[in-house]
């Protein structure tokens, strides 16, 4: 469970590869040549892989916040800046988002869960950057995401499989 601004969110532990303090990222951060999305301005390199750094508060359209941690995700090239890691919790139930919700939240969340009688949205790791957003970032910053483990010349399909 993590928080951004005044809100709490849940993300499945299996979709998070690593949690780091923003202070510890230091020299591993690279500015994007052309930041086509306001919420993505940097890349971070970890263990020979690169990740787009997504600002959590900008992603969720929240007021400016002070991120202290970064969630490096596992199956997508995304690292999410969050304000705090709150706790580890067991999610016993995942309820679909009511159909009345029809905005961007349908991409952002896998659904809702109840933790300690509190309703919390469950973030979708693939919702932080959609396939279209990833494509735009790659087109505008060609080759930046490629690292030692993603040799130049590899197709996007091959890179996505890794």
């Amino acid at each position: 469970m993590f928080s951004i601004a005044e809100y709490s969110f849940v993300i499945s532990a299996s979709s998070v590869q690593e949690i780091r303090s923003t202070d510890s990222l230091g020299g591993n951060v690279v500015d994007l040549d052309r930041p086509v999305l306001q919420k993505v301005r940097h890349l971070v390199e970890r263990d020979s892989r690169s990740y787009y750094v997504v600002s959590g508060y900008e992603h969720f359209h929240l007021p400016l916040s002070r991120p202290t941690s970064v969630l490096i995700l596992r199956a997508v090239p995304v690292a999410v800046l969050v304000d705090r890691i709150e706790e580890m919790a067991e999610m016993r139930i995942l309820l679909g988002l009511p159909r009345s919700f029809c905005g961007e939240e349908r991409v952002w969340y896998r659904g809702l869960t109840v933790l300690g009688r509190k309703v919390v949205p469950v973030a979708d790791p693939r919702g932080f950057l959609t396939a279209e957003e990833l494509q735009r970032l790659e087109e505008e910053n060609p080759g930046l995401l490629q690292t030692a483990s993603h040799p130049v010349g590899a197709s996007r399909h091959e890179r996505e499989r890794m």
Partner: protein
Amino acid sequence: MNAGTNNLAPSFVVLQVGTRRIALPREGVAELIATPLLYTFPHTTPNIAGVVLRRGRILPVLDLGPGVSGAPSPSTRFFLVVERQISNAPEKCAIPVQGACELVSGIMLPAGDDGGFVTGHLDFNGEQIQVLDLEKAIAISAANKDNWIPATEELS
């Protein structure tokens, strides 16, 4: 015909949204609930103020205030649960209301077709109460982006 207790006449639920009293057809209303906790999280859907938990089910809270009275509904712990049809499937929603709701019977006088969300008027003890088309009210509120409820704003 005045509203009253005539069992043969259609029934309506009179509710107060912000400063305005309105009515909804009885058929679409499930129950009035009291709950102190409104849960909010970021989203971009207009008119949705959050969710409430009711008997283990999550109900979206649909604030009619911006469309009906021109401002988000004030804090409340009372919600009228109504059933909407979304994509041909029913979904229950909670509408924040101020104070008690009344079940009344009466004949609705149809409103003119002005494209608004009022389908008719009800004469309730001399008071003219507008009967809403819920889906139209939601659509019109949503279309007026100036009245959107910011994700960071809470009812309670």
